[in-house]
């Protein structure tokens, strides 16, 4: 069995979509922040917090969609904290982002241990179940691969065009993009740059948290320490790979997830013995390669990392 045969299996395509889902949410979230001019390195911690919060909501008896909303709200709250520091006080986005990641992940471990002190085997919830889309899932192959997913995967796919429309076809989206390119021009239009940037960071962080929640509420049914495992950092690389465009971000996440799904399967069938660590390394190596690949054409939002202080000339 070789690569072509793997590509011909339903399981491969279904796995690709499943692996891509959290990446799509979180990459879009980071993209929204960066488009407004704010690098959000809190992503890794916010995803961890979202994974914990959504799961905990359901474990405490709430319903699944309530859990998704709760995760988004908690993520948004950390986004607000990030925004107060980086947007309103204009502090270093690198330092604050790392601080938010440290805070959000340690706080989620603390809260998890606090609420469930004696849990040795991770307790489980009834996670999102596969929803077979009527009629479409009956299509041979395609139906099995793409239309028998969990609802959150459908949501991830649906959210991409929404974000694209929001950023490129609405006045708010224009203000967000302008805030990341030329904040002084936004201010000249009588729009509050700080509010636009802050809002973008809050919304983007909510997306990241939902991406994290996918892990505990759809991909798995329990919360483990360290389960986000660098996915947030990969999403930051994906944003660069996507040249800050939502549709390209979708493509990047799918490509990335496809390669990941492919290598897992290749690992099982390859005759040669390759230590498993090298397979686990692949996503991180790929991210770096993707950044090198895109380095020539990468066009950063011009005001990324530059704090906006009213009345100051740049």
């Amino acid at each position, binding site marked *: 069995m070789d690569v072509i045969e793997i590509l011909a299996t339903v399981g491969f395509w279904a796995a690709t979509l499943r692996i891509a889902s959290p990446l799509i949410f979180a990459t879009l979230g980071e993209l929204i922040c960066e488009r407004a001019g704010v690098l959000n390195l809190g992503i890794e911690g916010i995803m961890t917090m979202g994974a914990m919060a959504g799961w905990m909501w359901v474990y405490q008896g709430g319903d699944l969609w309530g859990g998704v909303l709760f995760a988004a709200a908690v993520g948004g709250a950390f986004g607000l904290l990030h925004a107060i520091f980086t947007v309103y006080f*204009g502090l270093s986005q690198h330092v604050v982002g790392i*601080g938010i990641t440290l*805070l959000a992940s340690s706080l989620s471990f603390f809260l998890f241990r*606090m609420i469930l002190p004696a849990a040795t085997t991770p307790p489980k919830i009834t996670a999102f179940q596969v929803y077979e889309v009527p009629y479409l899932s009956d299509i041979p192959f395609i139906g099995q691969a793409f239309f028998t997913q969990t609802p959150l995967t459908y949501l991830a796919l649906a959210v991409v065009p929404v974000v694209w429309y929001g950023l490129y076809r609405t006045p708010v989206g224009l203000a967000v993009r302008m805030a990341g390119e030329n904040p002084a021009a936004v201010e000249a239009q009588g729009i509050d740059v700080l509010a636009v940037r802050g809002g973008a960071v809050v919304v983007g962080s909510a997306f990241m948290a939902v991406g994290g929640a996918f892990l505990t509420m759809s991909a798995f049914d329990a919360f483990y320490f360290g389960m986000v495992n660098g996915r947030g950092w990969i999403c930051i*690389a994906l944003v660069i790979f996507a040249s800050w465009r939502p549709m390209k971000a979708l493509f990047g996440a799918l490509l990335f997830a496809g390669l990941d799904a492919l290598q897992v399967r290749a690992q099982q069938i390859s005759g040669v013995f390759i230590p498993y660590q090298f397979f686990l*390394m692949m996503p991180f190596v790929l991210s770096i390669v993707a950044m090198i690949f895109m*380095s020539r054409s990468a066009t950063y939002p011009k005001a990324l990392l530059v704090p906006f202080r009213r*009345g100051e000339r740049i």
Partner: protein
Amino acid sequence: MARAMRFEPRERVSVLAAAAAPLAGVAVALLLCSVLILWTGESVLEAYWLLLKGAFGTKFAITETLSRATPLILTGLAAAVAFRAKFWNIGAEGQLYCGALAATWVGTGLLILPPVLMIPLLFLAGALGGGAALLVPVILKNRLKVDEVVTTLLLNFIILLFVSYLLEGPLKDPMLMGWPQAAPIIDEGVLPRLVERSRLHLGLVVAVGAALMVWLVMTFTVWGYEIRAVGHNAAAAAFSGIKINRTIIRTALLSGGLAGMAGVTEVAGLKGYLTLDLSPGFGYAGIAVAMLAQLHPIGVLASALFLSAIYVGADSMSRGVNIPTYIADVLVATSMLAVVLSVMLTRFRIRFN
């Protein structure tokens, strides 16, 4: 309100304010975390008292705190040096493991020398290993403008997996079954203990010496001046004839080397052999150390001691009262954010109009 708020740089910052800012930030963090402690149902004062006692209450506790501070000083210096040049090295964790790897390679029988030579050789190997780990990000940054934040972060995971592979494969101690660990460092390379019946070792002296060296280099040498100039205003530095790329490479090698030395203190001082749990996140904690110290090399000594006191103290506290040890990490993260904010407030004046 937000519309009317703006910041005015203060013309001069008093020494007192600069020194008080981190303390105020830490005080705020302790207050905020006491809300969490209240929620656990324990007494806040008792919890903090137990933490303090756990960190400094006995002679053994003090040696534990100092030995935990050792790698934190070095990773803190690594972050402080790099951040001064606005080179965002978030990869100290990976560089630490590369340093430990190099020390393991040299120190497990490659060559046998008397301790006077062997120990410096191990630190040299570790520094080279840690510096080498930063070569790829720094070349990618200089040549292709690839963002070093992401590459150094991602490299942490790659390096850790590579170490995991080595420990289960080529480097696995053949004398041991089960738990993957490398062969022990030879006796000549083991850092001598500073205090009998404790784990405090020579690494502390090396770390403190490194802090002094870094302070001297950063303050009194052309190299240090160039590093600071590039961080302050790269365009102006380039205009005045400083080679930016070369300065960034030097900064990176220095930063990675310091982080690599942290790997040596752990592998040759504390543990004696390389395992995958050598560092419980010393690399990431180093960023907090550097920020609490406002990137000052001597300040790093104090803030590393503060962090290690929290970690060691929280371990002992959680045995006494029912508070998860993760409170230590929460406290560190909260302190870092609070200090960053309080330091900013000493430099700017908030105006409302």
